[in-house]
């Protein structure tokens, strides 16, 4: 049986991840948003490292290291450069008001807990709460993706979803390494794709505001 203190620390990390997801929701400055994302990745890597320690699963340290190096350092650094180069390090405008977004976020977290806790009774204490937290992070990431119109913030929303998935995958004890590698791998690939797209968008429109892209509907009436 897992020592209660170890369990509490695991919950602390997972809970902080949900809090950081909330912080992502209300950031209205590009640089702030990227910094908070770096914090998000840092919390995820701490959480994974803790799981590796309490589950005695050394391969999870690799996942933690990947999350730390790539998502907490390399990607934020690259995004900062992109943002400065594009000259969009000023405000970003959420579609609905901050208050409304936060309320929706609270509703989603409540939903995640109500859905996950009753049906995962057999899955073990650790996995249970971790799944509820990670579903919250995923839903908050989705909310962020639909409430933002800027390509960079949508990408950050997507990467926060990936962080939630890592939390879920590591909480499921003994899950084969395939999935962890794949998650890290997919983030790398995603960044390449995104980088290409951002620069293509820049070449064409001198902006990364997705809202303007919708001017070019393929089909005119």
């Amino acid at each position: 049986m897992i020592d209660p203190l170890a369990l509490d620390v695991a919950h602390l990390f997972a809970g902080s991840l949900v809090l950081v997801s909330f912080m992502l929701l209300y950031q209205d400055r590009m640089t702030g948003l990227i910094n908070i994302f770096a914090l998000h990745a840092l919390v995820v890597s701490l959480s994974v490292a803790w799981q590796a320690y309490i589950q005695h699963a050394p391969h999870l340290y690799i996942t933690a290291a990947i999350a730390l190096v790539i998502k907490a350092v390399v990607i934020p650094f690259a995004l900062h450069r992109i943002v400065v180069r594009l000259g969009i390090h000023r405000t970003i405008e959420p579609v609905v008001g901050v208050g409304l977004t936060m309320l929706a976020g609270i509703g989603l977290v409540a939903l995640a807990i109500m859905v996950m806790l009753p049906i995962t009774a057999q899955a073990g204490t650790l996995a249970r709460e971790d799944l509820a937290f990670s579903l919250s992070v995923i839903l908050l990431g989705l909310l962020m993706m639909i409430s933002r119109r800027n390509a960079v913030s949508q990408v950050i929303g997507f990467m926060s979803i990936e962080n939630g998935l890592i939390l879920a995958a590591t909480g499921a004890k003994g899950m084969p390494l395939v999935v962890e590698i794949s998650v890290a791998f997919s983030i790398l690939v995603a960044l390449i794709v995104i980088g290409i797209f951002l620069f293509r968008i820049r070449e064409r429109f001198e902006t990364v505001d997705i809202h303007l892209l919708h001017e070019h509907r393929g089909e005119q009436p």
Partner: protein
Amino acid sequence: MGNGVLVVAAILVVPALGAALLALISDDRKGAWLNAFVSFLTFLCALALLLERPEPGPFLIVDDLNVVFIILSTLVGFTTSVFSSSYIAHELETGHLTHAYLRFYHAMYQVLMFGMNLALLSNNVGLMWVAVELATLTTVLMVGIYRTPAALEAAWKYFLLGSVGIALALFGTILVYLAARSVVGEGLDAMAWNVLVANAHSFDPALLNLAFVFLLLGYGTKVGLVPLHAWLPDAHAEGPTPISAVLSGLLLNVALFAVLRFKSIMSANPAALAPGPLMVTLGLASVVFASFMLYRRQDIKRLFAYSSIEHMGIVTFAFGMGGTLANFAGLLHMALHSLTKSAIFFCVGHIAQVKGTQRMADIRGLTVSHPALGWSLGLGVVAIAGLPPMGLFMTEFLIVTSTFARAPALAIILGASLVIALGALLLRLNGLAFGDPDGRSDPTKASFLPLGLHLALVLAAGIWLPPALVAWFQYVATLLN
């Protein structure tokens, strides 16, 4: 048995090596031919699976269900690569694509084939997820390859919706692992298909239910089921036409295949939610929505993209109804739809090139100006609309009649939508194929070989199916129950 392992390895290694080679070759003609040759080689390897198959391993499996998909997938992959070589030659002449992009395009084509074959062959739910993600990312890159504003918007939309879908699917996959872990134990076994299906009866039903909802929504996004279909018409319309053909003909099938695999786990557990009603609802919604949307389309590739949504809806509906007859019809419908829809896209690709537009209002009188293209399009539309004597008539007839016996109300809705879609398609065909030709009209340099082969197969299926094939599909249909 050793040969079987070699064959399976070849199906994966040939496209992977082909991708590496194609990335190195700078000559366009050679690239196009090598692409077709590699695809042909993969198809031959897939046929060899009929003779011999390996024992299931921890990562790869060959069973009766996925053999059908692999052969279909490699066949359409090969014919599309033949079509692609004549299509691409024209794009180079008109300057739509540069040499560097073409090299990238050919390499990506083989990476896509590799991803789809891996997804079909994988015995591991995690590996399958990785393969589907790989296939998605390569198609995102290919959809955006023209770099027009519309192409970029389509690729971006596809990327966002596709990755959200794939994220939901991964969450579902993790839940399936959790459900399996308490029964099978930790490690690779808890993610292997054959182990999962064999032990599914003792999994925790509540976890399975939740997992299936995530998996259906996640992979359903990739199938293009209705509330989640927004990426599909754009991605079909703005990318190169060979990619539209592969998307409609193959990638949607691969995603549906993933749903089917998880459905069989659900059905093996008596206490779990029946997956049927969920699939029937999503499928029927897709059919009804798409058949009405067909009327408002202005763009020829979008028209057939919506028709793909309709047909994937029909197939999902059939598998949702279940039972040997509906499964049989659904499986056959899926195969014939792949062949027909890719044939139509071959046709549409050449039409858009000779007319210089995809707007249907600017395309008229094709049977007069380009008789071969016009009549093949006519034949393709007759097939896709589900008219006799083509094969899709038979499968749609089977699906509707088998539904009538069990849920008449659903059968009436389905039948009515099919008739509505038929009306829209014939209306459009009338405008496109008949009347006086106008507008630009270049001579066609199409290769009719892939087009003719697909339509001939669909026609043959409508008139006479070899008993061996029927027996095979029936056997697979009973497996799906």
